[in-house]
């Protein structure tokens, strides 16, 4: 036994354990801070900085100071900054590699704060889906405000592709191909020369004699001749039928081409002027881009947050072997008597600092394993008598207990928000700014299984719009709109967003529409009329020549018809002569 045991080994082992413990006590705070920065940066895909961390054992807890999370889209801005974080940890669960935080307190929580240095990091993996890509697609509010002063019909036509010209080119090619094809086919059909040969054969038969046998033989030859002529005539008739069908088809195509200029005119008119629908929904032009911007930002953040609400589901896929992290392996879960998520913050109490003041609130059940807790993430923040806002409250439920039927609800209520110099339209041709006013906003939004359904109701009172100071503008569309708005002191609007995250639409109505329509309709109608006349003239000038060319090309096909008719006439005459004989 002695031969195999080294008793002093116990002492050495004890010393090693003490050294490891000392190292842990001295450096654990630094290690925790580094881990938060490292894994935080990996998750956010932008730099996460932490001033310090302090881990205490009795009672088990962690305090963090100076946390900054960079906005991945704006590396010089922090998406979130928190001055102090304190949390209590459940030691028993830590032994099971589970981080369960009963209570967390956040102090000095701020959004969109400036950074001293860039927080951009080199991405090692494909970025999560955001709406930046979909923004490049047609926005539901894609529209250019009409500016009749700068509209030049000829210039527009230089930059636009006309459907008419495309059709002309296609039909020209087809007519030419038909012509060439029939020139070749005519050579294969019986012609005047062929019928002349038949006539010669007939003359020869007429001169034949030689008794009864001779007469009988001549009769048989005439019958054969009759058959040959009839066969050729059939070929000619079929040929002409085919030709007529093709000519009728080309004629039909020509009719389509001649109606194309009208379609081009309507398309360009709608593109460069206001359609009747656009005129009756001018508020969409003002509020639309802002609302689309807010929705896109919300969707971008939703895509970022979603994986952390449904982490449990992702783990399930890993177990199935869909994904393996090299060097880390896969953690397999087994049934537990009292299942507890790997990460859970039961309750966060936070003070959010916004420009208007402090918002107080709580968040509950923050975990990527809602399927285990069976509880959705909830939050509620509110503030009263803030600077420039009488009351603000925001609350929501992010229910991902069953990822397939997830449902997220967010409600916002803003009362008497003092608006100052709010730009409704930044378009240089029609700048519209609310100089001052009080806004009440109410948002109810639901995202259920990827489908958005949101309603935003806004009411503005004591409104003052920045007026038009240019006399020239008085006669323009923008001048008319600005003049009309000068008389508005209150208005309401309602926006309804619906559809999927990738393809949503927004319906926007406002009682401003009526005011704007009445003010601008006359001017738009007058100016549109002049532009429409110019546009129509320019289109006609551009397409008339090519269409005439097409018509002449189609007329040229008449020569083939004439040739076919002539050959048929000769053949028919010959056949008539054979009957007499």
């Amino acid at each position: 036994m002695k031969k195999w045991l080294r008793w002093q080994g116990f002492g050495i082992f004890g010393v090693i354990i003490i050294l490891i413990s000392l190292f842990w006590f001295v450096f654990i705070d630094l290690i925790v801070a580094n881990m938060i920065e490292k894994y935080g940066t990996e998750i956010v895909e932008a730099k996460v900085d932490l001033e310090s961390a302090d881990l205490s054992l009795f009672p088990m807890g962690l305090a963090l100071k100076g946390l900054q999370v960079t906005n991945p889209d704006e590396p010089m801005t922090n998406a979130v900054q928190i001055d102090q974080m304190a949390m209590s940890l459940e030691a028993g669960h830590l032994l099971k590699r589970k981080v369960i935080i009963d209570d967390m307190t956040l102090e000095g929580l701020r959004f969109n704060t400036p950074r001293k240095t860039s927080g951009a990091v080199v991405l090692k993996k494909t970025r999560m889906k955001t709406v930046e890509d979909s923004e490049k697609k047609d926005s539901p509010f894609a529209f250019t405000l009409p500016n009749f002063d700068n509209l030049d019909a000829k210039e527009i036509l230089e930059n636009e592709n006309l459907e008419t010209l495309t059709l002309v080119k296609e039909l020209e090619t087809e007519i030419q191909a038909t012509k060439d094809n029939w020139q070749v086919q005519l050579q294969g059909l019986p012609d005047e020369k062929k019928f002349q040969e038949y006539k010669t054969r007939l003359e020869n038969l007429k001169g034949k004699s030689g008794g009864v046998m001779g007469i009988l033989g001549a009769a048989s030859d005439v019958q054969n001749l009759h058959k040959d002529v009839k066969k050729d005539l059939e070929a000619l008739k079929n040929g002409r039928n085919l030709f007529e069908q093709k000519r009728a088809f080309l004629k039909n195509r020509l009719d389509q081409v001649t109606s194309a200029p009208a379609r081009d005119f309507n398309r360009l008119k709608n593109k460069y002027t206001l359609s009747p629908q656009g005129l009756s929904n001018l508020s969409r032009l003002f509020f639309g881009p802002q609302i689309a911007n807010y929705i896109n930002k919300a969707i971008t953040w939703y895509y970022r947050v979603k994986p952390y609400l449904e982490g449990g589901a992702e783990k399930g896929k890993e177990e199935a072997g869909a994904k393996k992290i090299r060097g880390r392996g896969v953690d397999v879960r087994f049934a537990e008597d009292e299942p507890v998520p790997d990460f859970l913050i039961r309750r966060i109490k936070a003070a959010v600092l916004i420009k208007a003041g402090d918002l107080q609130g709580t968040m509950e059940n923050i975990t990527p394993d809602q399927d285990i807790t069976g509880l959705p993430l909830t939050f509620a923040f509110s503030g009263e008598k803030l600077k420039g806002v009488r009351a603000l409250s925001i609350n929501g439920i992010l229910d991902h207990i069953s990822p397939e039927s997830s449902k997220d609800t967010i409600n916002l209520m803003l009362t008497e928000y003092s608006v100052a110099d709010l730009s409704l339209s930044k378009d240089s041709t029609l700048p519209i700014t609310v100089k001052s006013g009080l806004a009440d906003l109410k948002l109810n939004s639901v995202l259920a299984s990827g489908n958005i359904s949101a309603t935003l109701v806004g009411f503005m009172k004591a409104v003052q719009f920045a007026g038009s100071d240019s006399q020239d503008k008085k006669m323009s569309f923008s001048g008319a709109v600005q003049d009309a708005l000068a008389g508005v002191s209150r208005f309401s609007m309602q926006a309804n967003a619906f559809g999927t995250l990738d393809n949503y639409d927004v319906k926007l109505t406002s009682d401003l529409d009526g005011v704007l329509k009445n003010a601008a309709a006359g001017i738009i109608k007058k100016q549109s009329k002049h532009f429409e006349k110019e546009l129509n003239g320019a289109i006609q000038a551009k397409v008339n020549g090519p269409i005439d060319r097409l018509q002449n090309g189609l007329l040229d096909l008449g020569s083939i018809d004439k040739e076919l008719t002539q050959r048929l006439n000769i053949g028919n005459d010959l056949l008539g002569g054979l009957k007499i004989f």
Partner: protein
Amino acid sequence: MLKMLAKFLKVLNSDAEPGQISLALCLAMIAGLTPLFSFHNLIVLLLVLVLRANLSAFILGWVVFSGLAYPMDHLFNGFGLALLQAEALRGLWTSLYKLSLFRLAHFNNSIVMGSLAFSLIAFIPFFFLANFIVKRYREHVLAWIQKSRIMQVFKASKLYTIYQNIPGWGGSGS
């Protein structure tokens, strides 16, 4: 590294028990093939220190097996997953999963489970194989090597000087 290699050669050529060298190599296999910061490696360390396993052989073996571990990750991952997801073992894992020790040791991780199971299965065969090799080396190869021309060149090298200067701290307990 040269010093470590020289130490190992010295141990190999000394009268240290082959079993102590083999035991050290087997324990090095567990520590080297499994993730370093694992709970079970504390037990391995305790065994290395308490049992008369040869420390030079352990350290050299640990370096070699750690180098082998990374390219074998995918094998350990597959083996570990197969064990953890085996229907026949589900009851066992489910019972163990409820124990804090099992979770702390991270035995539900595919790589930890795969590499540890592989090391434990290979432990006894590898022990006897290493024993056999050390004995055969001493009986046949050592004498031939001592006389070989390469050995004569080696004896004139720096490595041999290091080798000569190392006090004999091997499995013999000296």
